[in-house]
């Protein structure tokens, strides 16, 4: 007797409603990404591909001096597109392998930051109360710390390996992501649709995963990209100070650092890693911003 009877209520929907519904799908033309966005993405793809397939590019070994003929501080040539540095190592090869270091540290550090910061931020904002207050307090202490000094000190004691740098830079990006995620979650957790989901018997985990998380993603995407850029920059700064991965392993930062010792040598030695770093950061920030705008549901509302 309790099967759902299939009925439509009489004069179920007014014409106006039907018209409104039918008109809707066509009214908002999908936003398109511009030319510059695709340039940025192209550059990032190029860097990524080159870094991944560095071994197949028939480059000279980046860390060992090029043995014959011995060329120190040689200017760009057909044999060495960007020349050879003061230890007669191929600069292009060092640049490519340096991209590997920068990208890997950037990616893994961001993953750690987003993973820990994002989940803590969402959790904290959803449960509120003492846990939230405690966590936020800890995060503010972290934020108040001059990160670069702390990183330098810790690395000095712990050792300048790639994995240590990843972990530390990742951890120091946690408070920023925590703050952004927490704010986005707070804004969303008070919305009626969260209460509505709860009123349908959804567990806290389900509400967080299915109702809140998708609404936090836009803010998180933008921050993922900014964090990625930030970590690459910090790694560059560390490298410049000689505190990142140790020579002879190259990173963009330590290449700039090394080349800056002797600006009278070829300018290209400092320009190459610096512009690689610059272009990558511009591309990341611009692409991130465009993606955020594209998925910003609040802007689509009207």
């Amino acid at each position, binding site marked *: 007797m*309790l099967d*759902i009877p299939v009925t439509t209520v*009489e004069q179920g*929907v007014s014409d106006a409603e039907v018209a409104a*519904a039918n008109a809707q799908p066509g009214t908002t033309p999908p936003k398109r990404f511009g030319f510059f966005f695709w340039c940025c993405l192209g550059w990032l793809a190029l860097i990524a591909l080159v870094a991944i397939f560095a071994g197949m590019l028939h480059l000279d070994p980046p860390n060992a001096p090029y043995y014959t003929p011995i060329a120190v501080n040689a200017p760009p040539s057909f044999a060495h597109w960007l020349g050879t540095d003061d230890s007669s190592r191929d600069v292009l090869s060092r640049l490519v392998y340096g991209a590997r270091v920068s990208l890997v540290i950037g990616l893994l550090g961001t993953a750690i930051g987003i993973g820990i910061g994002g989940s803590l931020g969402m959790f904290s904002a959803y449960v509120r109360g003492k846990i939230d207050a405690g966590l936020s307090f800890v995060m503010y202490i972290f934020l108040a710390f001059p990160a670069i000094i702390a990183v330098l000190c810790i690395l000095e004691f712990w050792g300048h390996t790639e994995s240590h740098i990843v972990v530390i830079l990742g951890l120091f990006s946690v408070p920023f992501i925590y703050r952004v995620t927490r704010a986005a979650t707070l804004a969303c957790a008070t919305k009626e649709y969260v209460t509505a989901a709860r009123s349908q018997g959804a567990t806290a985990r389900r509400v967080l995963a299915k109702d809140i998380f998708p609404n936090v993603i836009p803010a998180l995407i933008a921050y993922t990209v900014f964090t990625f850029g930030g970590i690459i920059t910090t790694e560059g700064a560390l490298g410049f100070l000689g505190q990142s991965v140790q020579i002879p392993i190259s990173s963009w930062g330590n290449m700039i650092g090394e080349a800056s010792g002797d600006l009278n040598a070829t300018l290209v030695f400092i320009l190459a890693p610096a512009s690689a770093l610059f272009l990558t950061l511009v591309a990341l920030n611009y692409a991130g911003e465009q993606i955020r705008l594209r998925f910003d549901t609040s802007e689509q509302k009207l």
Partner: protein
Amino acid sequence: MSTSAPDTAVAPDAGTERPTSGELLEVTDLRTTIRTPRGPLVAVDGVSLRLKRGETLGIVGESGSGKTVLSRSIMGLLPGRGTMLTGSVRFDGQELVGAPESLLRSIWGPRIAMVFQDPMTSLNPVHRIGRQIAETLRLHLKLSKKLANQSAVTLLAQVGIPSPELRARNYPVELSGGMRQRVMIAIALACGPELLLADEPTTGLDVTIQAQILDLLAEAQRMRHMAMIFVTHDLGIVATRTDQIMVMYAGRAVEFAPTHQLFANVRMPYTEALLHSTPRMGNPSHTRLAAIDGRPPDLVSRPPGCSFAARCPYAQDKCREESPMLVADAAEPDHFYACWYPRGTSTPVHPQGAPSDA
């Protein structure tokens, strides 16, 4: 009239025969206290009510009278922190106050569901509406994805949405307010609840759509033998669609009666004032609408005496000193009110300290 919707209608409770009459909900002395920086705020103060299966109760009151908090308290759907619930809510014999969250979650959806006030904000903007309906079905009825999607389309057809297969693929922003409220109702009805709490379901809608939504709710209720609690500030809406009406003021029930008795013999001056502040078609143009002067009392530091005394045109000294209890009318035993000097009677009918058993 009926349309030939797909034959995938699911009987959510196939096999479990439900009784269609008898007591469903019994609320006794329910009190909701909200912790605020200024002190505890008693938003619902000792409300008792009973509801039978298939019946409709209207809860009426102005903004801030505690009607929304009451409906959420009945469900147990309150922000956990800072709110305290005492008293008793027995739903089909089961105590809900103090029940573990897991028990409540198993009741929310399949047995008690809620339709919210603002259809603009109560649908998740990032999911297609079909999916939002299917979610509930998959969670509680463990339907397969395909079956849940088919049932979602059927439900959309039942709430009067044209070309439901297409609409199921729309996002909430692509629908009008009336359509969204239909979707909300479809979600609430999805698992075949025995009790539907409708919290001002038509407040955000056009008057022309209001009547359609109300008819839809009434139709769904009749077909499913569902009990309904209808929360509104509009006496006109509940007048023809409820079996009983509870008038709330400052977190308390001030008048509680079967609908026809309430309108035939208004006892509580607040109910009378509410009725007078409803616009009427018969009034000449530019008639000034009677407003109730003043504001509801501060629920953190409640003044002594009757809560309505400060705004009541008939208030006497006694009203400001002693709080009236909810008592039964001498002539109509089903009609309860909390007033020392009720309308329509010449003398105070109840002695001091009358029993407060509502």
